[in-house]
């Protein structure tokens, strides 16, 4: 086998709510802001639709990171959905932390106008996770 090492790109799945974060991502698109290609979004009506089981599944089936994006607390279109999201994600993050996988799962509040915040958040997440991927790849070879 050739020894040539192909750099693996991190893959991140994002669950984004229709009313805020998805809108922000649309706006980031129309403003031609750039963010890493490894980030792929699944649109859900409300961040509270995100069953942590999805996140667990995604992580164990190959995603290097997963994030959930919702409206800022108090701004939820469904009045209190994101308060539940916050609880679920707080617990889930604690669980991943218990298995030394802190940072793989994140929660972002991004409003519809905050295209730049969206970019900043996902790019920072991607870069950190890519660094870890590189580190691990390094270890393996």
């Amino acid at each position, binding site marked *: 086998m050739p020894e040539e090492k192909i750099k693996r790109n991190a893959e991140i799945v994002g669950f984004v709510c229709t009313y805020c974060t998805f809108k922000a991502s649309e706006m980031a698109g129309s403003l031609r802001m750039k*963010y890493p290609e490894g980030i792929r979004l699944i649109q859900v*009506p409300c961040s509270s*639709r995100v069953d*942590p089981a999805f996140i667990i599944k995604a992580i164990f089936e190959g*995603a290097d990171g997963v994030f959930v994006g919702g409206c800022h607390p108090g701004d939820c279109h469904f009045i209190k959905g994101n308060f*539940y999201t916050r609880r679920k994600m707080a617990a889930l993050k604690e669980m991943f932390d218990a298995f030394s996988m802190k940072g793989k799962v994140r929660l972002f509040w991004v409003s519809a106008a905050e295209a730049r915040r969206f970019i900043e958040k996902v790019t920072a997440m991607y870069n950190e996770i890519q660094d870890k991927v590189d580190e691990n790849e390094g270890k393996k070879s």
Partner: protein
Amino acid sequence: MKIGVFVCHCGHNIKHTVNVKRLGDFFKSFPNVVVSEDYPFVCSEPGQDMIKDSIEKYGLDRVVIASCTPSLHGDLFKDLLKKSNLNPFYLRRVSIREHCSWVGDDLEKNSEKAKRLITAGIYGSCHQVPLEEKRVDVTKSALIIGGGVSGLSAALFLSNMGMQVYVAEKEAFLGGQVGKLKNVWPSLKSGSDIIEAMVGELKSRDNVEIYTSTVLKSFEGFFGNYEAVLAGPQGEKKIIIGGVIVSIGFSLFDARLKPELNYGKDERIITTVDFENKFESLNLPEKPRVAILHCVGSRDEQIGKAYCSRICCINSLRVANAVKDKFKDSYVESFYIDMRSHPKGGEEYYEDTQAKGALFTRSNIAEITSGENAIIIRGEDTLLSEPFEREFDLAVLSIGMSNPVDSRDLATLLKITLDKDKFFLEAHIKLRPFDTAVKGILIAGACSGPKDTEESINHGRSAALKLFGFLNLGWAYLDPFISYVNPRRCSGCRMCEHACFSNAIKYDEETRVVHVEEAACQGCGLCNATCPSSAIGLKGYIDSIIDDEINGFLMTV
């Protein structure tokens, strides 16, 4: 399953950084995909024709369009599917413009990303089922709780529009607080005239039933078909209504809660309401010295009323004017924190009152004590930073608005929420000020926070219009994206019921499973994510769709 995949170039917009040709070719050999094409502008007429032709030619039952973001081109493609006799919910849009070609520069990486996005779309589309916009019957009638000015405005509107209206008023008479006013600022019409005109008109209509001295006893059901029991002097009455408008107004602040003001102990210390009722009969000297205290029961955290009551500054001005008009040589001094002469014209009124010689002192009042010949007010002038002590013949306390007394009970009965000050909570303070989280239950007027007459009327009518919009056809379309329960899977743990903000989930004690009141569901999917066995699912976003989307994203090359 026959899936058609259509990859749009969007001219250069997508093509520039995504290898659309390769994508189109790639999906040709994809399982279940029978046609896969790339096209310069899928949204153009020839583009749409191409899709339509493909649907007919290949008998497609899923259409995946990879183009701009789904929010663009609204219903264009949905209509296209309809025209092609395909359920529009078999459409899947994949955004490869806003979420791919525009946000990345690298052609190879973008193409790879687009490939995954489309794969996810195809995977997800396999689980899509045809949905329909269901119709439910609703009762064209409304219950209005509270017969004040906003409730009456609502009743007038709804009855005028031909709906059956029930008005339940706790008191023996209609009109609420406005009815008690001698003159309503700024129109200066008498409150009772305003109310009488409204009540007279209501009574002349045969689709209005008014119940005074009546309260809501029980409340069941869901949007469009609520069942309420009213309890009044004639006994109980069960009514079926499509929706409810809560307009129970406010209660007056009880000035006794501020003992330092000595209200109720000295008859020279009265409230603005007292003044309204008995100014004419007051025994005042020739040149009365009248003090007016603002913000009694408002802007006062110590008594738990941090909010501004909005109307009391105008009430104070009205008192000052009345005194000045009657006693030209009176000494009138208003003690205020900020002058909030609120509605239109208020500022001018304030100026005019000053011109009449009323004094305004920015101050904090410490106490009112009773002297033999006068009452004594002690406080601090906050402009001069000096304490003062002044004698007056009369002190008028401009009392604020407190939450309606039975807000808590009513909230529990209707399963709606209260805010921190125990007024009713709006669904969205800015944009949905009449809605509650529960569909078909609306709030109007001062019961959701201090409001003046004009605003209460606005509220009453607006809420009524909203309800009318819900009910006027006698039926309503349901959003197709609502939850449904698989009763065989449901364990009846009621977690979803607890979490649901719109009270759309009901537990059946007999079968020990829950079901969704479709008319009430607003489609957030929280229940779906809360249920550990996925016995409840949100149509259009069911677990298997999202799961397979994840699979698509993570597809190995």
